[in-house]
């Protein structure tokens, strides 16, 4: 009897602590750190950030920037400018990794001679520029500056300050997350979970990047060792927005027109810098499905890793079912495979045409 009382007392204390924990986060909002290869303006890297900023239920603790689609410094500039234009300069921007952990551009060029060309190489594209160069910015240069802390230490500090509360969103290569895991081996365990856009399972597509090698996907390929570190860390849960599902999305002219007619800074940023019909809403889906999971109609649970073998498969996705998985500590990932595009499209348009919560002095309509 006495023992049961103790159990009840602990249970009650647990409930109390849980409620205190949620009360301590800003108005009970869901906390997230947005890790991104933030090329811009417009485009999937920027619009996915807008998805989170536009949600009244979300607190974006920071944007940690990594080289991927573009070089880190130009991406930092695009992110800062976006935040200025939509009036959210209160969100800190953190400088992350400039280079992958192990892969280099030179090594990749040698690899291509032996195994064939990589279709898309992000910052390493043939007509690209130097790592610290910031080409002219259509949306104007930012007047604000990034934080002095580096991305990895910010990630570590945040999850230690708010253990088990923060979801990590990763929309680019995994270098920053791998560094955070190296600095604090318990980093992944202290988060609330990981959602990432990346990986390609079995897409039936003519898109050149995947048509000849369906298991090759840029975000995970760019820094294979970091992807391996990320995928083998002890996250409470991992959700993957795969190429398979992203390819089912599209930024249609109708969606664009509906957003463009609204006179808010966010809608007008999209009207001015985004382009309908160009490509899938890769990262936007990842962010939106975290807010509204019911738009995902099919999930495949598989064990997932990346080949860090330096042969022809270097950086390719590996997946296994329960039956065939290797005798290694591989982790189960919820891989999104199909989406209700109508639901996602409506959700996206509604968010992008809403006022920006907490916006202060947006520069967009000035």
């Amino acid at each position, binding site marked *: 009897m006495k023992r049961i009382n103790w159990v009840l007392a602990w249970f009650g204390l647990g409930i109390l602590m849980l409620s205190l924990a949620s009360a301590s986060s800003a108005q009970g909002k869901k906390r997230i750190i947005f890790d991104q290869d933030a090329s811009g303006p417009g485009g999937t890297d920027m619009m996915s950030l807008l998805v989170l900023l536009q949600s009244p239920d979300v607190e974006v603790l920071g944007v940690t920037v990594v080289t991927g689609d573009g070089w880190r410094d130009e991406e930092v500039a695009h992110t800062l400018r976006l935040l200025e234009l939509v009036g959210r300069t209160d969100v800190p921007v953190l400088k992350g*990794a400039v280079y992958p952990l*192990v892969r280099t551009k030179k090594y990749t060029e040698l690899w291509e001679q032996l195994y064939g060309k990589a279709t898309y190489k992000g910052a390493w594209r043939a007509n690209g520029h130097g790592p610290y160069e910031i080409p002219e910015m259509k949306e104007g240069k930012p007047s604000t500056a990034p934080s002095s802390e580096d991305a990895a230490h910010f990630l570590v500090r945040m999850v230690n300050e708010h253990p088990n509360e923060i979801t990590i969103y990763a929309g680019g290569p995994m270098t920053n997350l791998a*560094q955070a895991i190296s*600095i604090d081996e318990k980093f992944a365990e202290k988060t609330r979970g990981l959602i990432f856009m990346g990986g390609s399972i079995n897409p039936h597509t003519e898109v050149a990047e995947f048509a000849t090698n369906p298991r090759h996907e840029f975000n995970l390929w760019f820094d294979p060792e970091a992807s391996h570190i990320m995928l083998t860390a002890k996250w409470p849960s991992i959700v993957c927005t795969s190429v398979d599902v992203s390819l089912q999305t599209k930024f249609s002219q109708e969606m664009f027109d509906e957003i463009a007619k609204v006179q808010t800074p966010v809608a007008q940023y999209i009207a001015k810098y985004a382009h309908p019909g160009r490509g899938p809403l890769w990262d936007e889906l990842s962010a939106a499905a975290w807010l509204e999971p019911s738009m995902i109609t099919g999930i495949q649970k598989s064990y997932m890793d990346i080949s860090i073998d330096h042969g022809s498969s270097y950086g390719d996705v590996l997946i296994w079912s329960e039956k065939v998985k290797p005798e290694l500590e591989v982790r189960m990932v919820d891989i999104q495979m199909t989406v209700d595009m109508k639901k996602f499209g409506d959700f996206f348009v509604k968010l992008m045409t809403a006022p920006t919560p907490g916006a202060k002095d947006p520069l967009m309509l000035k």
Partner: protein
Amino acid sequence: MSAESTKGLPNRRDFLTTSAAVVATGLAAGYPTLAAATRPTSPEPFPGAADATPHRVIIDTDPGVDDALAILLAFRSPELKIEALTPVAGNVPLEFTLPNALRLVEIAGRSDVPVAAGASAPLIRKLVTAAYAHGENGFGGVEFAAPKTKPVTESAPELIRRIVRASPGEISLLVLGPFTNIALALRLDPGLAKQIRRIVFMGGSLSGGNITPSAEFNIYVDPEAAHIAFHSGIPMTMVGLDVTRKVQLSDAHIKAIEAAQNPSAQAAGRILRSTMNRIQKMTPGSTAGPTMHDSLAASVLIDPSILTMEDYFIDVETQGQLTAGETLGYKRFPIRRSPPLELATTPAFGEKQATGAVPPASEPFHPNAQVAIQVDTEKFFRLLVGRLTA
């Protein structure tokens, strides 16, 4: 020419004869050679007796029996100013190397020196330790009181970065364990490499390994991290097994250290005696004592005349199933790699035929490291025992 280039390099294994063959083919193919790279060189003029300014050093370490001796030696050497200790997982896990580093600053009476926790695992691979050589606790089984000093809140890469950035070009790193912390710092801040004066490290070998026939332990544990350091452009001084396996303490050395009354010598004496006993248990009849790998590396910063150096381009094998962590010393162009498995239709990189991925012939050869090839053992023991017992 090829005979010349091997002169004065005793105790090398086949590497040298094959390297001579490569020279010949290199010359035949019209590759430039770098005469300067083949000459023995003395280290960068480290401040010695003539220069009163102490050399500012961060010690990255995995204590570790010989790490302990190196750190105590460094603290007792006025030529050095120890800026920080950054322990890392290596000889034993971080849960031992961190408190051991804190104990060492306390034993040396230098709790003012910051100690920052480093990486608990290699960059990509799983941790392999050397508890068989250092005891489960890293100090050969000798128990010291729990440290009172606390590590700083910064991580090791962050502390390294802050200290180096505050004094660009002035700070050297003495790396006595796997390169994990260094690689992390270099990847977190790509501009940092240019501001580091030099890396002096214990690790690698051009004459066979210890943990495997090809790899030395520190490089074996985290080959990817070592690769990042060797390709960073930071001038390196490699004190590898080529020389360190020659500095084994004798019973007389240990007795001399035990006889001294200062706390550093007392602690060193206990660790060494326990390790000596372990060695004799494992190899009955052995008279050679603990090998002073790390303190030999530290000594180059104190008295450069102890070691003879030669310039090399050092690269690390990161792909081998058997050989990961092997250090390879190239003395001149071309830096050849394994031949490709497939024949490329277009000859790669200016080669007449596909003979492996090598950089273009026009690329100049730059040595990235001075490698210790000879050691004056008597001079080293005089320094080590002399400083500890002074």
